């Protein structure tokens, strides 16, 4: 079984600090004009925060390989949903919705 080690309250505190820092950072980044990079930076920070929550708060870092691959497959499936929908809508010769 994958009971190698367990996160400690100290680690949870560090993760909390990272998440708070990420929230402040995403707010500051949004007030800064970066053109096309604004949404990219916002989503990168959001993904990083989500990964921290999944790995440590949700214990995926300490889970079995079966659970790990299930979670990874689920999020990969979400990426397929969003990437293929958007590549369809964005690559049409006609404007969206015409």
């Amino acid at each position: 079984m994958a009971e190698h080690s367990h996160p400690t309250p100290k680690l949870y505190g560090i993760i909390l600090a990272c998440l708070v820092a990420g929230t402040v950072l995403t707010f500051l980044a949004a007030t800064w004009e970066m053109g096309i990079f604004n949404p990219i930076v916002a989503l990168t920070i959001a993904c990083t925060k989500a990964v921290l929550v999944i790995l440590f708060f949700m214990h995926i870092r300490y889970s079995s390989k079966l659970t790990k691959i299930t979670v990874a497959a689920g999020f990969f499936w979400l990426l397929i949903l969003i990437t293929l929908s958007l590549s369809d809508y964005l690559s049409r010769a006609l404007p969206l919705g015409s």
Partner: protein
Amino acid sequence: MEQQKEASTFGMWVFLLTELMMFGGLFGAYLIYRIKYYDAFVAGSSSIDVKWGFINTLVLIGSSFTMAMAVWYAQKGTRKLQMVFLLATMFLGAVFLGIKGIEYYAKYDECHIPGHIIGKGFNATGGPGCDTGNIAEEIQKRARERGKPEVPEASAIQTAQQTEIFFSFYFAMTGLHAFHMIIGLGLLSWLLMRASRSEFGPEYFTPVELGGLYWHFVDIVWIFLFPLLYLINRTKT
């Protein structure tokens, strides 16, 4: 016991992934409409008070931390601290919903609720009782403040009317999220009851672990909702 816990965790994750698909569908639709009606999404997003969204993000992250601590103490079998952290999580969850209520009321007051059933009906172009939520005027003001070319009134009014689609997404996504929070509060009270009977310890704490997974998942959804709904374009120039 270990195998049972493993099976339960796996099952919970499968359930959470179906939830992910449900929210993911909404996020996908949101992205497509955001590209099509970008100006309206910027105008709608800017009309929401970012202060509350920011505070709520911190509140929810804090509640995830207290939940993780509750799981930790459930595993240790420390009854008192386990209950303290479950209560703290419930308190933060309630604060989140209260703040959400303040935000919803502001939108109600400004006539920004889509459709014509609730309140005075959707009206983002000013009118009797809806002058505080005049988005058309805001669009023109924003362009002037930033030294951009003047926005003609007709086009400002059209964009303001299109914010209805943004608010539809805003209410559908935050509403579904808030609904999950309410269910989470129910789960937490059940866990609190069982914790008070000292049912959890190193041998058996699966319900707390799974309740924690659910709570953290709802937190993750908000981590994406906050930048996508509140921070589309908050630049000053």
